């Protein structure tokens, strides 16, 4: 109970902090009216729109009004689309979730086993080959891989649509692109975490007492290596916006990554603020999940808490 309470307080404080930071940073950086409307707006029109959006009040008054709105469950209206931000996010969130969850699952299902295998087959050709693939996946920027894939599969072979999010076929290339990068990261991380454990004394002991190698690897080594691996995966989920933003941009997929970028560029404060709230919520949930999985995996964590 105490644990949940401290967690909740910390989460709330984090949220308030990030939202406030974005609130003031975005307002100090520019005015949406300068960006949205063409140049040559008369002072009267300017003043009209400024008061229409409530931007003529002091930052502090706007800030208090925003939090009053939050308390009532009102997250604000988009300045560029003239409708509630929650509605816009509700339209786009499913696309991002489909994209990220499929890519994440694919990257875990392929990346983690390959990383473990590469660690057990150290210095053998198969391990070198796996690591070479991982190296390329890690070194090639996401959008460049995407461009090569669009060129080959869309424009040359005509197998896949190059952009959009209408059917599941539209998601194939974005998911593969995203999964490549995350998979490469998973392989590299899993391998080094496994190697570290495999060098420990208790592994030598396990081998010395004649345990089968599969048992040594899968039980003794893997269970210990799982802790850093899981926290790495947690960081991956927490950073989901950073991962999806480029892929969404290249494939013109209407998700929240591209939405947040547009919000920042157009100074659509409401979208930016709500985007950060969503993101912070994901970070907090991801951290919580990681802690729960820790406790499931590692008896020592259970005793400590």
């Amino acid at each position, binding site marked *: 109970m105490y644990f949940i309470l401290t967690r909740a307080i910390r989460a709330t404080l984090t949220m308030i902090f990030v939202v406030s930071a*974005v609130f003031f*940073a*975005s307002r100090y*950086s*520019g005015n949406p009216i300068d960006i949205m409307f063409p140049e040559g707006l008369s002072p009267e029109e300017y003043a009209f729109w400024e008061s229409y959006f409530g931007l003529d009040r002091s930052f502090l008054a706007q800030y208090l009004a925003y939090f009053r709105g939050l308390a009532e469950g009102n997250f604000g209206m988009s300045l560029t689309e003239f409708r509630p931000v929650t509605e816009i996010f509700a339209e786009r969130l499913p696309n991002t979730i489909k994209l990220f969850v499929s890519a994440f699952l694919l990257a875990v299902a392929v990346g983690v086993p390959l990383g473990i295998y590469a660690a057990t087959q150290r210095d053998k050709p198969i391990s070198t080959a796996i690591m070479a693939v991982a*190296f390329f996946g*890690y*070194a*090639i*920027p*996401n*959008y*460049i891989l995407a*461009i*090569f894939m*669009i*060129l080959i599969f*869309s*424009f040359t072979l005509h197998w896949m649509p*190059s952009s959009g999010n209408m059917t599941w076929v539209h998601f194939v290339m974005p998911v593969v692109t995203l999964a490549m990068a995350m998979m490469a*990261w998973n392989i*590299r*991380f899993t391998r*080094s*975490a496994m190697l*570290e454990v495999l060098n420990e004394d208790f592994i030598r002991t396990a081998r010395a007492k004649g345990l089968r190698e599969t048992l040594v690897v899968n039980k003794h080594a893997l269970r210990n290596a799982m802790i*850093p691996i899981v926290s*790495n995966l947690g*960081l991956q989920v*927490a*950073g989901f*916006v*950073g*991962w999806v*933003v*480029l892929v969404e*941009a*290249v494939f013109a997929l209407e998700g929240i990554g591209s939405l*947040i*970028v547009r919000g*920042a*560029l157009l100074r659509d404060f409401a979208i*930016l603020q709500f985007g950060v709230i969503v*993101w912070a919520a994901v*970070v907090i949930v991801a*951290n919580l999940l990681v802690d729960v999985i820790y406790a499931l995996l590692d008896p020592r964590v259970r005793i400590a808490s």
Partner: protein
Amino acid sequence: MTTAETLTPEPQTNKRRPSKIWDGMQSANWLIKLCFVLLATLIVVALLAPLLATHDPNAQSLLARLRPPIGFEGYREGYVLGTDELGRDLYSRTLYGLRFTLLIAVIGSLISMLIGSTIGIISGYMGGVVDNVLMALVDIQIAFPFTLMALLAVALFGTDLTIFVVIIGLADWDKYARVVRGQVLAIRDAPFIDAVRVTGATPYRIIRHHMLANIASPIIVLWTFGVSNVILLESSLSFLGLGVQPPTATLGSMTGFGRDYLASYPHIGLVPAFMILVIALVFLLLGDWLRDTLDVRLKRQA
């Protein structure tokens, strides 16, 4: 860094220590040698861009729009790699783009290195409350995905080149801070540091002359990875249209604009994309190699 030679953990003669990097280079495999050659070429080309360019990188020519590279149908004399949607020479533009990309990468990663290493040294050397506070900062930085923070910061403040470089430079500091702190902790209580301390050396002198020489290797290795990280971050942001403003080109922004012409004129995007790929691979491969050669162990560097 030769001043600390007499007091390194393994006592050395006063003769200058033969460079490990140089020795390693002699016996490196062909891939690494190729990387060094490529690196040297890239640097020379970036430096000599004004001499090597055949056109003004921003000069537009409507008559020569969207021309393919040499050897393709429609090639126009003098535009070796073809032209882009505004008739700008792609070859000259790529040279200048390379120049900007490398400049941003080197300065950005140096900023990360300086901030991170300084924090790491202070944290490790002082210990106690200072250490706790600084390491809490590092944890915050790790918990918050920096790509997005940088993206927001650049979108809001980053049209100016200086600000852009600084924001990019802030991306990586936590890695240096963590590793350097660990290194400082490892040698802080070593006998040779104690020896210097009893002779009355100031902390500054101890750090500057006696510790830095011993923690230089991991910093160099991290920096090599840092350059490629910064290049990836810079080119990703530029690709999204954030960052250095047109007409000034970096390789990332050129790829970004090229994306719109991919169906009919793929060369516009492919030329800069290929350059980014080469640079990123060169720095990552050299980083891996340096780590092995200098025998640096970076804890869980994925």
